[in-house]
C-alpha cells in the first residue's frame, strides 16, 4: 500500500462511519438536537432574565460542547468492537493511526461541527451580548477538535476495559477543564472589551499538539482493547 491508497482508506472509513450514522436516522441529528435541546432548556430552567442568561451563556454553550462530545463517545468504537471490525482494523495493513485519525475526524464532524455551526444561534437564544459571538465561535472552532481527540482516546481505552471506563472519564475531565477555562476566559475578555488573542493562540497551539499526539494514543489503546 502506498500513500495514496492510505488516504483513500481514510476517506473510505470516514465515508463509512458517516453513512452508518446517516442510515441510523436517529444518529445523524443527534448532537445537533442535543445542543438545541439543552440551549432551549436552559432559559426555561434558569428563568428568562437577560442579564443572568447573558452572563452564563458562553459557559453553558461550552459545557454543552463537552457533554455532546462525551455523549458521542460510546458510539465511537463500541459498534466496531462488538461486530469485530476493530479486530480487522488491527490486522489491516494500513497504519492504525490513520484509522484512528479517521475516527476522530468523524466524531468531530458529527458532534463538534454542528455545535460550531449552531453556536451563533445558541448565543442568540441564550442572549449572549453581540460582542462575544465571534470569540465564542472561534473558541469552539479551535476547541471542539481537541475534545474529539481526547474523547477518542478515552473511548478507545474504555471500549473493552469496560471496568476502567468511569475512571477514564474521570481522567479525561482534568484535560477538559483547562480547555473550558481558557475558552470561557476568552469570551469573558471580549465581553469586557479586552483582546482575547492570547487565549485563542493558546487554544490553537494546544490543538495542534493534541491532534498530532492523539492518533498515536488511540491506536495504542485500540491494540490493548482488542485482545
Amino acid at each position, binding site marked *: 500500500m502506498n500513500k495514496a491508497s492510505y488516504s483513500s482508506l481514510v476517506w473510505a472509513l470516514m465515508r463509512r462511519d458517516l453513512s452508518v450514522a446517516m442510515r441510523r*436516522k436517529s444518529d445523524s441529528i443527534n448532537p445537533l438536537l442535543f445542543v438545541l435541546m439543552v440551549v432551549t432548556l436552559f432559559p426555561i430552567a434558569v428563568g*428568562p432574565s437577560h442579564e443572568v442568561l447573558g452572563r452564563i451563556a458562553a459557559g453553558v454553550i461550552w459545557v454543552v460542547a463537552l457533554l455532546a462530545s462525551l455523549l458521542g463517545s460510546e458510539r465511537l468504537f463500541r459498534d466496531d468492537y462488538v461486530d469485530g471490525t476493530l479486530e480487522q482494523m488491527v490486522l489491516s495493513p494500513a497504519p492504525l493511526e490513520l484509522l484512528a485519525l479517521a475516527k476522530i475526524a468523524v466524531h468531530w464532524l458529527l458532534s463538534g461541527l454542528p455545535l460550531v455551526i449552531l453556536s451563533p444561534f445558541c448565543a442568540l437564544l441564550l442572549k449572549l451580548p453581540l460582542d462575544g459571538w465571534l470569540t465564542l465561535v472561534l473558541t469552539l472552532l479551535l476547541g471542539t477538535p481537541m475534545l474529539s481527540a481526547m474523547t477518542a482516546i478515552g473511548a478507545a481505552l474504555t471500549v473493552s476495559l469496560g471496568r476502567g471506563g468511569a475512571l477514564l472519564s474521570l481522567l479525561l475531565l482534568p484535560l477538559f477543564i483547562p480547555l473550558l477555562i481558557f475558552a470561557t476566559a476568552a469570551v469573558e475578555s471580549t465581553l469586557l472589551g479586552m483582546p482575547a488573542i492570547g487565549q485563542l493562540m493558546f487554544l490553537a497551539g494546544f490543538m495542534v499538539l493534541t491532534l498530532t499526539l492523539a492518533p498515536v494514543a488511540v491506536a495504542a489503546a485500540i491494540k490493548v482493547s482488542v485482545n
Partner: protein
Amino acid sequence: MWRWLHPYAKGQATYQLLGRWLPWLTGSALLVLAVGLVWGLLFAPPDYQQGDSYRIIFIHVPSAMLSMGTYTAMAIAALVALVWQIRTAEWSIAAIAPVGAVLTFISLITGAAWGKPMWGTWWEWDARMTSQLILLFLYLGVLALYHAFNDSRTGAKAASILALVGVVNIPIIHFSVYWWNSLHQGATITKFAKPSMPPEMYIPLFVCIFGFMLMTAAFITQRLRHEILRQELHRPWVQQVLLNSPVKEQ
C-alpha cells in the same frame, strides 16, 4: 392464541370515497375562509386599544385552536390504530401530523409577531408558548417516528403510542394560562357565556375558525389519499390509478 390476519384493508374504497369528498371540502373551505378573512381583515372595526394590529387574531386563534383539535383527532386515530389495527387509521396519523405541525407553526409565528407590539417581546418562556412549542415538537416526533422504521406498520404503531402519550400536553396548553401567571390572555372567546368581544369582531372570527376547520379537513383528506397510494403502491389498483392520472399523461 387466535390471530386473524385479514387480507389487505380496503384502501381502494377509502381512496375513492375521500376522492369524492375532496372537491366539496376544498370548495367550501376556500369560500368560507375567503369570507372570514376578508371580513375580519378589511371590514371588522379596529380595536379601541390595539388598533389594527389585533387583526392577526383572525389567523392566530383559528390556527392555535385547530392545532390542538387536529392533535386530538390524531390521538383518536392512534387509539383506533392500536386497538383495532385499522390501517386507514394508521395512515391518518401520517396524514394529520404534518398539517397539525404547520398549524402549530403558524400559531407560534403569528403569536410571536403579535407579542412584539403587545408585550414588547417576540418570545418568552411563558407557559402557554412553551407548551405550544412542545406541541410542535410532538407533531415532529410523531412524524419522525412514523417514518423512522423500515416497516411502515411498525412505524405507525410506534407513532401511535407516542401520539397517545403526548395527549397530556393538550390540557396543559389550554389551562396553562390559569395554572401559571401567563403573559398570554385567558379564554376570551371560548367562554361562551359572556364573550369579552363585540360581535362585529367575534362573528368574523368564528367564520375564520370554521374556514380553517374546513381547510384543515381538506388538507388531511388530500394527504391521506397520498399516503394510501404510497402504502399500497404494490397493489394493482394503484398502478391503475397512477397510469390513468392526468399527471402521467402530459
